């Protein structure tokens, strides 16, 4: 019984993952773009740090590269869902006997993970040919790396849930362009993609670290750079788990409400 109910979601994951491997051109384009941005930013920070204390430079460069490497994770990835919302054909998928919210989350997770892995390999290879001063550093220790992996999986799950919340809002407003543009910008800034969150003033940082977008990449990257003690690590994981729970519950509620209104209005 249990096995039967989970199968459609596994299949959704598998199919979307396979589809993602077909987008090799997009992946190559992404790698070139992200590599260029990473390089420019790395040199920008080299120049910025050259003015004063160079202590944090290595960390910042590493932060930049990890952000670029996992950029795919942040992108609102399932254009299929956007299309279905805008054209209204989402109503048809309601006929399928699956949990809509979970179904689309599985697809999103597949796209994020496979897309990120596809881009990661060439980005890591690139590190070997870069000049030393703009190369990213290895994780501080095996423990730091393990913490990073654990936190990253939670982070990716958080982003998938953020996507469902934003798509729920798109369902309501039906204006995807202005809104999703703003959301993705907000995401880039607050996730630390445009500038590392570690560079914000200390006072703001306390707040920035615990907002939902920071759970995606900022939290794992901090662990990659410095293995955290039990207390700090627990707080960090707790924050991620808490956001994951809140976003999931909120997303599900919004979806349920919207899907019900579709069935009531008849599309």
């Amino acid at each position, binding site marked *: 019984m249990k096995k039967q109910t989970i199968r459609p979601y596994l299949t959704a994951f598998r199919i979307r993952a396979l589809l993602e491997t077909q987008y090799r*051109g997009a992946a190559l*384009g992404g790698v*070139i773009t992200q590599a*260029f*941005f990473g390089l420019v930013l790395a040199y920008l920070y080299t120049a910025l*740090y050259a003015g004063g204390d160079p202590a944090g430079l290595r960390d910042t460069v590493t932060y930049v590269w990890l952000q670029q490497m996992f950029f795919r994770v942040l992108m609102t990835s399932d254009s299929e869902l956007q299309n279905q919302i805008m054209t209204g054909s989402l109503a048809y998928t309601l006929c399928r006997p699956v949990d809509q919210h979970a179904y689309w989350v599985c697809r999103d997770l597949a796209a994020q993970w496979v897309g990120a892995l596809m881009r990661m390999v060439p980005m890591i290879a690139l590190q070997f040919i870069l000049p030393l001063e703009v190369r990213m550093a290895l994780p501080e220790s095996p423990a730091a790396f393990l913490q990073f992996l654990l936190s990253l999986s939670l982070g990716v799950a958080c982003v998938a849930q953020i996507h469902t919340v934003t798509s729920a809002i798109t369902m309501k407003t039906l204006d995807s362009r202005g809104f999703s*543009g703003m959301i993705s910008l*907000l995401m880039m*800034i607050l996730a630390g993609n445009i500038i590392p969150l570690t560079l914000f003033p200390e006072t703001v940082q306390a707040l920035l670290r615990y907002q939902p977008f920071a759970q995606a990449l900022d939290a794992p990257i901090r662990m990659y750079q410095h293995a955290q003690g039990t207390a700090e690590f627990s707080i960090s994981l707790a924050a991620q788990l808490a956001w994951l729970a809140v976003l999931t519950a909120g997303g599900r509620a919004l979806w349920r409400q919207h899907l019900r209104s579709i069935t009531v209005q008849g599309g």
Partner: protein
Amino acid sequence: MRYLYHAMRMQLKCAAQYRASFLMQSIAQCVMVGGDLLAVTVLMNRFRGLGHWSAEEILFFFGVMQLTFALCECFGRGISNFSYYIGGGEFDAMLLRPQPLLVQMIGNRLDARRLGGMLVGGAALAMACLRLRLHWTAGKALLLALASLGSFFLILGLFLIEATVSFFSVKSIEMVNVLTYGGRQACQYPVDIYPRPLRLLFTWVAPFALCMHLPVSVILDKPLMDVPIWQVYAAPLAGFAFFAVMALVWRRVGVTHYRSTGS
């Protein structure tokens, strides 16, 4: 010319039909450039300057770049979104009109929402000017105008590369985006902070250094290069040259390819 003016007015009329949506999207543009402004402000707050450039000077560079880029997106949308026209058959319609193709591309798509971006860019520029207490002369004002105009055409030229590529493959657009958005990102800071290969790239291939950074550095009284002043005035011409070359490539390679393979 009369056609171009009339066509643009028509675009504004169309946009005015959807006032609320237009307003929303203009604000979105404001916020987007505002995000970049925030990033620069945070960095300058943390580091107090970049190389031998002060925070205000960096803001000046930023303002010139954002203002020019928003202008390009406003007038050059027909070029930067060219891949849609090929897919949607609009390019066929352009081929059926007795006006130059590039003029039609510019005239058919005026994107007034970019006013939001221009406002933020302009505000950054104005703020930098105020804080710097620049000593303005007619020559400097002319230099600023030349720098903007030269960079304007340079960026349109970059858009044209994307447009040319979209004749061959719509999918590889993402790869070419690096030219435009990467160029904007990298060159909103003066080119001398970068190592030699990037400096060469932005001086001789996509000459942001010549069109924008050199004249602006002279306005700020910190010349990037030790060259006679007339060369500073002439440098933005590189942008026009870049545009001319790319327009030729677009025509000879792109349009010719389209007509021989069709769609």
